[in-house]
């Protein structure tokens, strides 16, 4: 039915030549879900959806408005499109054009192994691995989905792509202590399941010995890359950088970055940060955006200097900069030192309860769920509780990045970062 709805919407919109633009997007999604409690299955689900979304732009003189909706097959198409036109006509934004049509480069995002994955077998494998690691399984959740997206726009753009996604949430525990593991990848082989379980079983072994860290107004702290890009409350530790480098912040005059200027006066490592929408099997990769823009990889902070605004078609026109598309996989260049050297004398935060980061000010705060206090010889003592707070822009003035790197689906880069002056509350 959605095929017919999609075709009917395109056909009707093509007849409305007075529209400034339109885009019709169809997404077919199929997902298997498995929820287990301890060693048993609790719920098994299959989710099927086939949905058509429409955006329309209406211009009046030098103003334009945009309205979008999920089309309902149960309601009259003509009146749904008329409603969209009416909503778009109310808005008085400076005019911009939809992106010129381009041929998207194929980006590898689909792994048939995820489509074929038997989640019951996967769950059984987890039970065995957890048992071998000497801990207990609290719960496991698996989501294995495949989505196919087709986009047609008024500019003549036409494209489609297929992607897969495997998301996992495991909770391991022993006695009073647990570890929550959340991972999401587009390729099955990217999930280091055995390594994750054994690493976290080791942490659970350490937790009974954990103490609160010593409070300090300014102390060296290392943050693991786990919450660099996606956090419980948004974009993670790097979000202030992507916020200030992004088109919306620049257009709203909220950005603190100036092209060609250092983002901070750094006396430690100067960072190089890129967005790569074509990163193979990246969970943030995409061959084209919802308006048909083919995105470009861009290094927006190079050796500590802000080089380029990351902007979609609208903000690129508003700001008169090159359109890059929105962010893809964030790639942070590694440092030169071994992490084993960087940890000396610092508190290494493995996980926060939830890292809270203010994208505007750069202030961050989180309760330490698990960490290690390293002495000057590299000996580690587990810590938990207490809070870590600081400001990313201040912290970047004196930071070190290790040479060891990880791939986390939406991030590729150093395993951690060391900040010299961060507050620890006991």
């Amino acid at each position, binding site marked *: 039915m959605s095929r017919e709805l999609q075709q009917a919407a395109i056909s009707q919109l093509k007849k409305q030549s007075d529209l400034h633009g339109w885009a019709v997007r169809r997404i077919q999604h199929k*997902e298997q879900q498995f*929820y287990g*409690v*301890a060693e*048993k*299955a*609790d*719920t*098994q*689900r*299959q*989710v*099927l*959806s086939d949905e058509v979304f429409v955006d329309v732009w209406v211009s009046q003189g030098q103003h334009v*408005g*945009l*309205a*979008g909706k*999920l089309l*309902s*097959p*149960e309601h009259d198409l003509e009146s749904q499109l008329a*409603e969209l036109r*009416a*909503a778009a006509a*109310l*808005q008085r*934004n400076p005019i911009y054009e939809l992106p010129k049509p381009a041929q998207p480069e194929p980006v590898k995002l689909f792994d048939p192994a995820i489509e074929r994955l038997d989640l019951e077998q996967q769950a059984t494998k987890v039970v065995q691995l957890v048992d071998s690691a000497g801990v207990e399984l*609290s*719960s496991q959740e698996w989501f294995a989905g495949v989505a196919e997206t087709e986009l047609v726009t008024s500019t003549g753009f036409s494209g489609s792509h297929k992607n897969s996604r495997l998301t996992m*949430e495991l909770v391991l*525990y022993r006695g*009073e*202590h647990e570890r*929550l593991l959340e991972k999401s990848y587009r390729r099955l082989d990217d999930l280091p399941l055995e390594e994750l379980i054994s690493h976290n079983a080791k942490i659970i072994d350490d937790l009974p010995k954990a103490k609160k860290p010593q*409070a300090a*107004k300014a102390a060296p702290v290392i943050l693991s890359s786990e919450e660099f890009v996606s956090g*419980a409350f948004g974009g993670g530790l790097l979000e202030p950088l992507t916020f200030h480098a992004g088109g919306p912040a620049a*257009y*709203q*005059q*909220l950005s*603190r970055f100036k092209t060609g200027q250092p983002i901070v006066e750094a006396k430690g490592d100067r960072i190089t940060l890129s967005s790569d929408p074509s990163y193979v099997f990246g969970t943030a990769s995409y061959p084209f955006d919802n308006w048909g823009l083919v995105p470009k990889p861009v290094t927006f902070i190079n050796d500590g200097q802000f080089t380029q605004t990351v902007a979609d078609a609208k903000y690129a026109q508003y700001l008169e900069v090159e359109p890059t598309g929105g962010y893809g996989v964030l790639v942070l260049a590694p440092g030169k030192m071994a992490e084993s050297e960087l940890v000396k004398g610092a508190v290494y935060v493995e996980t926060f*309860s*939830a890292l*809270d980061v203010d994208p*505007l*000010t750069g202030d961050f*705060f*989180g*309760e330490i*769920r698990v960490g290690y206090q390293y002495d000057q010889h590299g000996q580690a003592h587990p810590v938990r*509780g*207490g*809070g870590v*707070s600081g400001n990313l822009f201040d912290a970047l003035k004196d930071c070190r990045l290790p040479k060891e790197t990880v791939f986390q689906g939406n991030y590729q880069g150093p395993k951690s970062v060391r900040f010299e002056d961060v*507050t*620890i*509350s*006991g």
Partner: protein
Amino acid sequence: MHDTDKLRQVVETLEKTGGYGSVLLRGKQGRRAHVTKQEEIVTDIPEERGAVLSLFDGQVFHEAAVDSHDAGELAKAAKDLVAKVKVRPGLVIDPGPAMAKSFETKVKTEPDRLGAEDILAMARDHAELAKTSGPLVFNHAAAVNSSTETMTFVNRNKALNQKVHRVVSFVQLFVQQDGETRDFFDSKGLTGDISGVAWSKADLAKSYETAASLLGTKPPAPGLYTIGGSSHLSGLLAHEGFGHNAEIDMMLKNRSKAKDYLGKRVASDLVNIVDDPTLVGGYGGYFFDDDGTIATPTTIVQDGIFKTGLANLSSALQLDQPVTANSRRESYKRKAYARMSTTFFKPGDSTVADIIGAIDDGIYLDRFQTGMEDPKGWGIQIKFTVGREVKNGKLTGKIYSPVGLTGYVPDILGKVDMVAGDDFQTEAGTCGKGHKEFVPNSSGGVSIKTEAYLG
């Protein structure tokens, strides 16, 4: 309204297996407007339209989720589901008493009659108030969101329908002085009429005063403090501090320490915490939950004693606990879990003035930004925008910001020695189960006094 007979036929198809079956139709639609200094948007909110067919085989729930309310498509999905499931000996679900009811949030203006122009006009008014609220404002944003959530639940005995109207609006002020930029976010949300989330000039004057007071502020020195706090503190303690502990699916997974404290003391005897989906106007409210359980209040903590957990059907069945109306799912695409609705600290006998007057040297906390639970370890983290310094029982005017609160929940709740009765209110928000599964939610209560680590 859907054809109950056809949906009941779908249930019959599911139950021909010998298991328990139910059908849940979910829908959400509405509009939102967002106005900033430079741009404005008015559009539909992300819509939901789908169904969940559930079949319990005695041990495991099997669900088919489809993006349709069409009875023919649901009948086909039911046949496909039945073909995959074999019922086994195990637990038996009571479908509840025979019941056919329909519910709807009371409103003056039907949300269906609110056009895009009405929502946009309201957001523009709020943006204008924000823009002119004070001389240091250099940028601003205002948004209004009106949504209607519909649910139809049918099993062999029940046929329930509900329409819940949720409205929320926010304003955000960006203030700037001497090269420093700070922002302050303020929101109103409720189930009810859109007029309840309108902002006045006086509201914005208060927001501006707070925004301007944040310029030049720093967090407090790390340490243990005597604290007071508004409903933003007590609500987050009720929600993050104990509410998540009380979700019994977390007990089933051995993820909540509260499992061992049912009937035992977890707080001072001044502490009373309630979850109430029926609280009039509560943004997290509803009339029945995703398992078709009619909403009623649940006393979680009474006089400091942990009384009752919050349950979804599946977990209550396995733990042999009472079912409460707390089964909620993010959308038809997700499973239902035990979730809170509107969770709050009940009023006590003190006043806000008493609480501030009783603090010799401490901080009065207001305006939470975020919070996170830790049911297994009973830790908590909350971030506040505003910490007001109190010396010798008086506010000094000095502001700390941001302020992070951490601690061990029984310590914080155990040291509650004053609870106000004169400033009850709830705040609208969104709650996740861990880091996902977001549902509309509210928390609140009254001012309290206790101790906690700040930094």
